[in-house]
């Protein structure tokens, strides 16, 4: 029995990998680099897989690793083929609150600004011979908060001066065409097959 289970697991993983690779080829993306990027989940998953292996359950270890890897590859493929603003606009059409969508867009827009500022502060502290101390880290975070709040105010004024609301418009509107319907249908079919075959276990 375990051999058969392992065989079907391997077949399933191969099939899913083939589908994802096909998606990467259709999107004209580098297939191997997309597949390799799924390994970012390894540090967390690897620990649990190792535990399962030590416990004498290699089947579970392999299934844990392959499931989280496949899922990560799927997300990498999605993000590599779809710009975030289009994805968010689509989610908004599907009923995600507009406030949440706007906040995600703002976080994404200002994330790199905040990180760059943090880096400048770190270099400035090191240049003045700053030590690694809990108090300094605290004040770094507090100053970062203060300047972020000030930045938010400036952003709000800039938006007002452009007469706009805090909403990010798309240049070309979203449409749904035959390819999308085909994709949706095949995804539903795959999900139904998974449920029927008991593959979710």
């Amino acid at each position, binding site marked *: 029995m375990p051999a058969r289970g392992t065989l079907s697991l391997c077949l399933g993983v191969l099939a899913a990998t083939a589908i994802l690779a096909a998606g990467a080829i259709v999107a004209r993306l580098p297939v191997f680099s997309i597949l390799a*990027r799924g390994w*970012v*989940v390894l540090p*967390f*998953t690897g620990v*649990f897989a190792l*535990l*399962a292996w030590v*416990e004498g359950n290699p089947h579970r270890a392999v299934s*844990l690793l392959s*499931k*989280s890897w*496949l*899922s*990560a590859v*799927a*997300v*990498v493929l999605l993000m590599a083929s779809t710009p*975030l603003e289009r*994805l968010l606009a689509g989610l908004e059409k599907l009923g995600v*609150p507009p*406030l*949440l969508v*706007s*906040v*995600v867009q*703002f*976080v*994404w*827009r200002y*994330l790199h*600004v*905040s*990180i760059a500022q*943090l880096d400048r502060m770190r270099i400035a502290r090191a240049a003045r011979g700053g030590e*690694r*101390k*809990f*108090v300094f*880290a*605290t*004040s*770094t*975070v*507090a100053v*970062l*908060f*203060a300047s*972020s*709040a000030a*930045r*938010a*105010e400036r*952003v*709000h004024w800039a*938006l007002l001066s452009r007469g706009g*609301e*805090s909403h990010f418009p798309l240049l070309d509107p979203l449409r749904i065409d035959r390819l999308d319907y085909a994709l949706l249908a095949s995804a539903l079919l795959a999900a139904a097959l998974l449920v029927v075959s008991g593959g*979710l*276990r």
Partner: protein
Amino acid sequence: MHIPDGFLAAPVWGGLCAVSAPAVVLAARASRKSLDESQVPMMGVLGAFVFAAQMVNFPLGAGTSGHLLGGALLAATLGPAPAIIVMTAILALQSLVFQDGGLLALGANVFNMAVAGTLAGYWPWRALAGTRFRKFGLFTGGFCSVLVCAFLCLAELSVSGVRFGPTALGLALVVFLINAVIEGAITATVAGSLEAMRPGWLKAPSTEGRPVLALLLAFAAVLASAGLLLASTRPDGLERLAQLTGLAARQKSLFAAPLADYRLAVPGAAWVGKAAAGLTGLVLAAAACVGLARWFSRWRSA
């Protein structure tokens, strides 16, 4: 504490998605009501701040360091509903762009960190903001938020069939406890510096509401999540407790009927029943605690 895909059983992540989605929609509606348009950039930029602040290493001596999670800090500065939205936005970006936490597990992560963690971080602050124990309220907020996240995360994993030995579970709990103390300390000290810079940043909620209710809610959240963790790792212990207290008969009629049907409907999938029992347990425990808190506060004010 970000759960990747492949760990949670389908009913667990599905059920938690079904809980998180309306919670986030409600939070969005509440923040729309309490905030004006100028707050949207504020929420977004502070979200970026939390993202960056999570990268600051807080040295703890002996070569170790911890970092901020930020839910309690956001709840104290923006209020609970906007904090839930901002934390959800951060988690969504982390799972989409950084593969930190799975996309299917996003509902579970949002429930643990954005909804339960933020609320557990807010209630102590709300209860103690107007009193002498202001700082302690901030510390307890940070502490509770991490503790609740950790308990929920471990409980969801073990309900889904990820086995921890007693050693691993104990080790994880110690690590999470230390993290909770760190989060409390960081939240209290950062908020203290913010207050020194500009007192208006910390939203002091009107405590003429019901401070006892708020504290009890926080306590209930911690207790419910801890109880869920215990119940999910030791189902036998729960049954024995029920028998000892003579609740067994009533409990059985409460639990057994719907779950028996569930097992009949999906033969051979015992974990469905287990997962459903775990989730039902969470809901029941939380409802009992909230009811107790309501009753207690009414009794106090009467």
